């Protein structure tokens, strides 16, 4: 082709123009700093927003507010409006942030490649995982009892959903909690006729007498109790209260008590009845209650518990029993609290019933400074009671698993392989189940055995609600909302991976099961929550009232929940029944061993749920200041006699197994008791928890409370052997001995009460 000069110039010009034109355009994606679909509508760059939600790191479910900046959660504080914790929080609540951004969070569903071989997992997608779950559930519909769902204690709408799912499908639902509260719930039911745990009015009490319940550290609702404790000690317009704490171990509550009474393990009930004897014989209690409790026979009915007669079995001198009982009766209003290790014996129900009877004896029910019964939840579908399945009912389940009668096991919010005493044989049984499904966001001890892991959202990404247990004395429903977009959103959008809410997954699964779908008429968990919120709105009372539902819903979430301070319990407690006239002594497993083993929940990590959080691993235990490991508290004098120094590795042998822990010679633990914190010894659970320390729960003998079948976790006796090894115990406290008297006087100065 012939090309003229003019044509050439034209072509060159066009070509150059074209090149310049394309060079000057830009890829549209470059203009997007952040995809518009990702930006929450109320986001203003550089400004923070605080959202109210609930903390899901422990059973207390405190109301929290979360500081969010540019789509990332930065800080957690207590929700000032939420009635159970009124603006304050525990160390554990902060852990929710590190759980959300944990480096070892699972980024999507995992499927086992080879059954029974270690961690042979391959990534899979949500649609494949859900398909597999649906087909399995559909397959087992003919034998629904072969499907077992294990969850943590659920409350609120989640409990309702789970119950509807399990009932309509016919599956077995079991609830797991390492240190179960079954005995406490049963005591409340028998003594107060109430399904709800009571509220203790510590703030207005003159004296508090507590047995075994470490309520200033981990027991039930520690933030709420500590809020009240501050008032109890130095509140304005009141005299300083007196706290006496009875427990075989020197716990945080014991450390803060005015008087700590070390008692022989399992003898708390006998001690309480002995105090009842003193109060009745001195005619200091409520006369009608005293008559009812003694069957009209007066102190004579309790003569088996005369202080002089029980001093040796309880290990508390008779004059001390008398003095404490009289002081308590003279300083009313007073409240008696019992739980923890006191209820974790083979005579647990006997102990707690005896302890709480002291409240009845003082006639302090529903009185200022006494025990307030909690009302029912405002709506029947909001379930409040969250009792664990007692140990006694686990054995038949484990037998079924072993015999191949369980085809599918779904585990959510619990790590039973970690928490169930090894002696029950759960591990062997687990490998016999053809299909194990775990909802854990982390690879935990149970998840390693799973055939399918479908990671659920962490608490800050999910919807939910809660009826606190114990409540604050009036009707309360907390609402949980996602405060940030899910961390693995990109994986979900691009690769169908990431995490999903547990309730949402269960609702999605219901779609393939007509019977279940009928019972669960919601598409999403948010819809389910809105349904309950609509009913709350319909009540037309309480902290959130609005004419339109949209307004109500917004206010409900902004406040973190709904409560009605005037909706207190209207039930009249039943007439007290007669107290036992004879002692019921505890039975121990491991007879002949010299030490009682007292496991206790770690102040920061609880029963082990918080072990994957580095902040909580590094938060020193208040009394020993130990961090990042497992220690064993052993009496200082005993340690000296045995030649045990701090940090020495000891072997602790129970009838059910053995573990190793490092010695902490303790000046205030009885000679016949050793104590080991729960929380460590995970085989998995992320880089901060894996293979760290030892799991005390694994060596518990499977003893149970005779009446309720609940695990008697304080009923194991152990031997202690030296291994000859020694480490530097990681702890916050220095090892240099202080001079006995500082020139400038004590660091902590004390004064007598005015």
């Amino acid at each position, binding site marked *: 082709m012939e090309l003229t000069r003019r044509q050439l110039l034209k072509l060159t010009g066009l070509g150059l123009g074209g090149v310049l034109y394309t060079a000057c355009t830009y890829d549209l994606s470059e203009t997007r700093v952040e995809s518009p679909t990702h930006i929450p509508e109320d986001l203003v760059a550089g400004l923070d927003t*605080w959202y109210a939600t609930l903390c899901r790191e422990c059973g207390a479910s405190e109301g929290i507010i979360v500081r969010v900046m540019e789509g990332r*959660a*930065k*800080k957690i*504080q*207590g929700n*000032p409006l939420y009635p159970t*914790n009124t*603006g*304050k*929080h*525990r*160390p554990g609540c*902060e852990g929710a*942030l*590190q759980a*959300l*951004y*944990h*480096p070892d969070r699972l980024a999507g569903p995992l499927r086992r490649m080879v059954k029974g071989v270690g961690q042979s997992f391959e990534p899979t997608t949500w649609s494949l995982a859900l398909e597999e779950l649906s087909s399995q559930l559909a397959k087992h519909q003919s034998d629904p009892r072969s499907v077992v769902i294990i969850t943590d204690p659920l409350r609120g709408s989640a409990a309702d959903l789970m119950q509807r799912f399990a009932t309509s499908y016919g599956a077995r639902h079991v609830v797991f909690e390492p240190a179960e509260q079954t005995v406490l719930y049963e005591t409340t039911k028998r003594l107060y006729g109430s399904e709800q745990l009571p509220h203790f009015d510590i703030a207005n009490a003159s004296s508090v007498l507590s047995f075994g319940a470490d309520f*200033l*550290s981990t027991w039930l609702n*520690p933030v709420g109790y500590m809020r009240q*404790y*501050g008032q109890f*000690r*130095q509140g304005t317009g009141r005299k300083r209260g*007196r706290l006496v704490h009875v427990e075989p171990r*020197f716990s*945080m509550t014991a450390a803060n008590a005015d*008087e*700590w*009474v*070390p008692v022989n393990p399992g003898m708390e009930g006998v001690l309480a009845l002995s105090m009842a004897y003193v109060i009745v014989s001195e005619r200091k209690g409520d006369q009608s209650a005293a008559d009812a409790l003694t069957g009209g026979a007066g102190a004579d009915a309790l003569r088996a518990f005369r202080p002089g007669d029980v001093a040796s079995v309880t290990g508390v001198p008779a004059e001390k029993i008398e003095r404490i009982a009289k002081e308590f009766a003279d300083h009313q209003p007073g409240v008696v609290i019992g739980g923890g290790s006191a209820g974790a014996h083979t005579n647990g129900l006997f102990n707690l019933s005896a302890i709480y009877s002291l409240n009845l004896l003082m006639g302090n029910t529903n009185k200022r400074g006494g025990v307030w019964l909690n009302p029912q939840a405002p709506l029947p579908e909001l379930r409040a009671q969250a009792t664990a399945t007692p140990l006694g009912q686990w054995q038949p389940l484990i037998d079924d698993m072993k015999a191949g009668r369980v085809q599918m096991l779904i585990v959510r919010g619990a790590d039973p392989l970690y928490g169930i005493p090894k002696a029950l044989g759960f591990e062997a049984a687990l490998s016999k189940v053809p299909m194990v499904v775990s909802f854990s966001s982390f690879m935990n001890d149970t998840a390693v055995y799973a055939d399918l892991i479908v990671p659920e959202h962490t608490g800050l990404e999910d919807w939910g609600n809660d009826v606190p247990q114990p409540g604050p004395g009036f009707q309360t429903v907390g609402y949980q909302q996602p405060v940030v977009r899910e*961390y693995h959103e990109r994986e979900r959008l691009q690769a169908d991976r990431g995490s999903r809410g547990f309730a949402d997954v269960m609702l999605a699964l219901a779609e393939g099961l007509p019977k279940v779908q009928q019972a669960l008429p919601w598409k999403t968990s948010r819809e389910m929550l809105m349904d309950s919120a609509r009913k709350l709105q319909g009540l037309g009372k309480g902290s959130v009232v609005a004419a339109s539902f949209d307004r109500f819903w917004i206010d409900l979430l902004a406040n973190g929940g709904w409560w009605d301070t005037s909706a207190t319990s209207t039930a009249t407690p039943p007439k007290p029944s007669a107290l036992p006239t004879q002692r019921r002594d505890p039975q121990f497993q491991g007879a002949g061993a010299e030490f009682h083993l007292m496991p206790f929940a770690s102040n920061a990590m609880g029963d082990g749920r918080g072990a994957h959080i*580095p*902040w909580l691993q*590094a*938060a020193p235990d*208040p*009394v020993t*200041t130990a*961090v*990042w490991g497992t220690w064993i508290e052993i009496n200082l*004098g005993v340690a000296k006699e045995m030649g045990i120094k701090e940090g020495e590795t000891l072997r602790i042998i129970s009838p059910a197994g053995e573990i190793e822990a490092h010695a902490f010679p303790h*000046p*205030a633990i*009885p000679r016949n008791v050793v104590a080991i914190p729960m929380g460590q010894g995970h085989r998995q659970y992320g880089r901060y928890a894996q293979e760290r320390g030892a799991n005390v729960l694994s060596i518990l003998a499977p003893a149970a409370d005779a009446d309720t079948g609940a695990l008697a976790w304080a009923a194991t006796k152990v031997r202690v052997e030296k291994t000859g090894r020694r480490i530097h115990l*990681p702890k*916050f*406290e220095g090892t240099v001995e202080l001079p006995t008297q500082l*020139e*400038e006087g*004590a*660091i*902590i100065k*004390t*004064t*007598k*009460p005015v």
Partner: protein
Amino acid sequence: MVTTRVRHKWGMVVDLDRCTGCQACVVACQAENNIPINLEQHFLQRRAIEWIRIERYWEGLEEAEKTGDLSKVKARFIPILCQHCENAPCEPVCPVYATYHNNEGLNVQIYNRCIGTRYCVNNCPYQVRFFNFWQPTWPESLHNQLNPHVTVRTRGIMEKCTFCVQRLRKGGRKEVQEGKRLDDKEFDAQSGMFAPACARACPTDTLVFGDMNDPNSRVSTMAKDNRNYKLLASIGTEPNVIYLKKVDLDASDAATH
């Protein structure tokens, strides 16, 4: 210079009779102030960083040993943080003026002036200054949690409690905008957002923060309580953190720790 700034003197009152030793303040501080994760080896090397810490002291050990009565043993807790001393021994020794006393009563550390001589930590009688012996690191995903309003300190830098100055600065802006002096309401857990993270978290209200220059503030009133004392008062550092004595039925002046 004409200024509309309100003259505050920030201070704290610590009521030891309320403290249970629960560690809520410690963890809250670490979350707010981008404090490096204290791993096991940091504790073993005694180089863990805790701007606020709980110290535990034993009492009655000798008596318990003598009588065999364990109930005589007592454990007492005390939260210790930078005392923001008026006569701070750490300040005059800094060769580069990285630490000084500001006009709001705060003992301030300027990180980009600090050259890491560690003279200040040697001179601090309360052991509340911490040196970054390593470059602090977090796994990538945990960076999402870091507070954008607080500098991440590098290796070779001294750091310490700031009374959460980032919150006070924010409060200061509100003060200017609204023309109203920051008062107790702004530091209260029920109504305010500017209290330091530790005081905001404290479940028992052991830690109370406020303006010592405001005669009606809670801290001013509480500081006059007859249980008040200053830590290591004899050395004359004049702390802005006031402690209230622990009340004990068996209190005696002969406490030994």
